[in-house]
């Protein structure tokens, strides 16, 4: 299968006909297959609307969205929209709130069954999906409602992964998780990306974006403000501030050090910053 790329052309979207600001205003964007894209912006900036259109959950008021060979526009039928969904998996915010089946296995099987897979295919997909989120196969027989919060979230994500989407959308997947669970989940996501899945990560956590993304899309009031590599986005504190974005801790510290007159390249992670500093500090220690 050819990996699908995403092409968004002049897309606008209004929730109703009233004279309120459109949720999306003339957005243009191209996402290459296999990218890891961070989608950032303040609450209500249009991030969720953008990805829900990519998943065919609504149709654009104007413009065109293409995912692989499927294309939709304002005139598209529900069947056309469903075509987009064949490539895309969407993990909503707090996805554990959507679990419904008696067993974990049945819940994970829901998506593949809807896609019309044979029962052998569905049966094979369940343990595979559990493995992808780092849960043992015998979880399939347990009730999803008897699990811990973190485990429920993993099961919900497995339910999306079971459909083997080429493009995976995650809306704030680590919200409410502790640091250890957050790290585990991000590692899983990085593994999926390494295996070829296109990742669209909506998040307020700039540290996650700086660390994992190769492309950052900045939204503000329904406009796509900028789409660029993280090194470029995070190089400009004034730009981040104007778009209500936090500065990743490593970036903030390297900027402060530069302001203090030190020759430091902007670093995107604590480790990258420590490498640079250690080289300098280590040198000094050698002379002492």
């Amino acid at each position, binding site marked *: 299968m050819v990996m699908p790329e995403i092409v968004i052309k002049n897309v606008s979207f209004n929730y109703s006909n009233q004279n309120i600001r459109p949720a999306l205003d003339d957005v243009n964007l191209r996402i290459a297959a296999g990218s890891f894209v961070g989608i950032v912006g303040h609450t209500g900036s249009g991030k969720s609307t953008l990805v829900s259109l990519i998943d065919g959950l609504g149709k654009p008021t104007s413009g065109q969205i293409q995912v692989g060979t499927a294309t939709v526009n304002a005139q598209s039928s529900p069947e056309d929209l469903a075509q987009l969904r064949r490539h895309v998996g*969407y993990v909503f915010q707090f996805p554990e709130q959507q679990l*419904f089946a008696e067993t974990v296995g049945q819940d994970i099987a*829901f998506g593949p069954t*809807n896609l019309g897979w044979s029962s052998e295919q569905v049966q094979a997909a369940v343990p595979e999906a559990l493995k992808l989120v780092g849960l043992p196969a015998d979880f399939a027989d347990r009730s999803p409602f008897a699990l811990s919060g973190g485990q429920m979230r993993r099961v919900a994500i497995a*339910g*999306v992964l079971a459909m083997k989407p080429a493009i995976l959308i995650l809306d704030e997947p680590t919200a409410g998780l502790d640091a250890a669970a957050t790290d585990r989940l991000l590692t899983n996501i990085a593994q999926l990306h390494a295996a070829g899945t296109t990742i669209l990560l909506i998040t307020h956590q700039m540290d996650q974006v700086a660390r994992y993304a190769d492309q950052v899309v900045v939204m503000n009031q329904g406009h796509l403000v900028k789409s660029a590599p993280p090194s470029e986005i995070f190089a400009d504190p004034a730009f981040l501030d104007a778009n209500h974005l936090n500065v990743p801790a490593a970036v903030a510290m390297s900027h402060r050090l530069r302001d203090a007159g030190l020759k430091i390249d902007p670093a995107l992670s604590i480790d990258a910053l420590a490498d640079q500093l250690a080289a300098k500090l280590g040198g000094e220690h050698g002379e002492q």
Partner: protein
Amino acid sequence: MNNKIVFGSYVPIDSPLHRLDPRMKLLMCVWYVVLVFFANSWGTSLWLLAALLCAMLLSHVSLRQYWQGLRPLAWVIVFTVVFQVLFSSGGKLYWHWGIMSITHDGLVNSLIIFYRFMVIITASTVLTATTPTLRIADGLDWFMRPLKFLKVPVNQITLMLSIALRFIPTIMDEAGKITNAQRSRGMNFHQGNLVKRVKHLVPVLIPLFVNSFKRAEDLATAMEARGYDPDSPRTHFRQLHWQGSDTMTFILMVLVTVILFLIRGGLL
């Protein structure tokens, strides 16, 4: 996100009707529904319709907004009316097929039902469009006060009611999110026969119930932490103020009633 007016939702503007005491409006609405059943002729029906139109004009809510609120119920009304036309008998027979027939009495009956349906629903929409749900609960609380002597837990009932109303938008919002999540997992709500479509509700309703129980538990804990004790007396922040305009409205209501019965008795 969704700014459409739905049946029963409040329209936050200012009008003489908005300013009335909720007790007056509740009384008026209930009284009007009773009066509708006394309308037995063209004259009486038109008189009550005119009274309703006056109230609608005074509410400053546009007719288009009322229509948008009523539209979701249009199918129920059409279905009931068609059912009446086809399945009631009596009087002159115009057409029949199997157990279905169109008769003179059937037509008259369905017209009456259509009229009652429309005016009663519109009257309640006038009430809900001009009165925030919480104020309606306050009004109900006042009317139910005498029941306290019968050991009915009026305060608990109205608090429950106002909390239920408060959570309707939250739960609607959540239902939308869960529906979208299941759609994105390949569920098609518009496919298959009726049984299949009903089955499609399961993946939406179960999470909705589970979340609502969780919500109720959280809410109970939060209420307890804030010192709520169902058995203790509470003071009330919201108070009702009966004003001159309410008395005026009451007099108007009596007038409408008197005129209705004059028309009915053939005196007007």
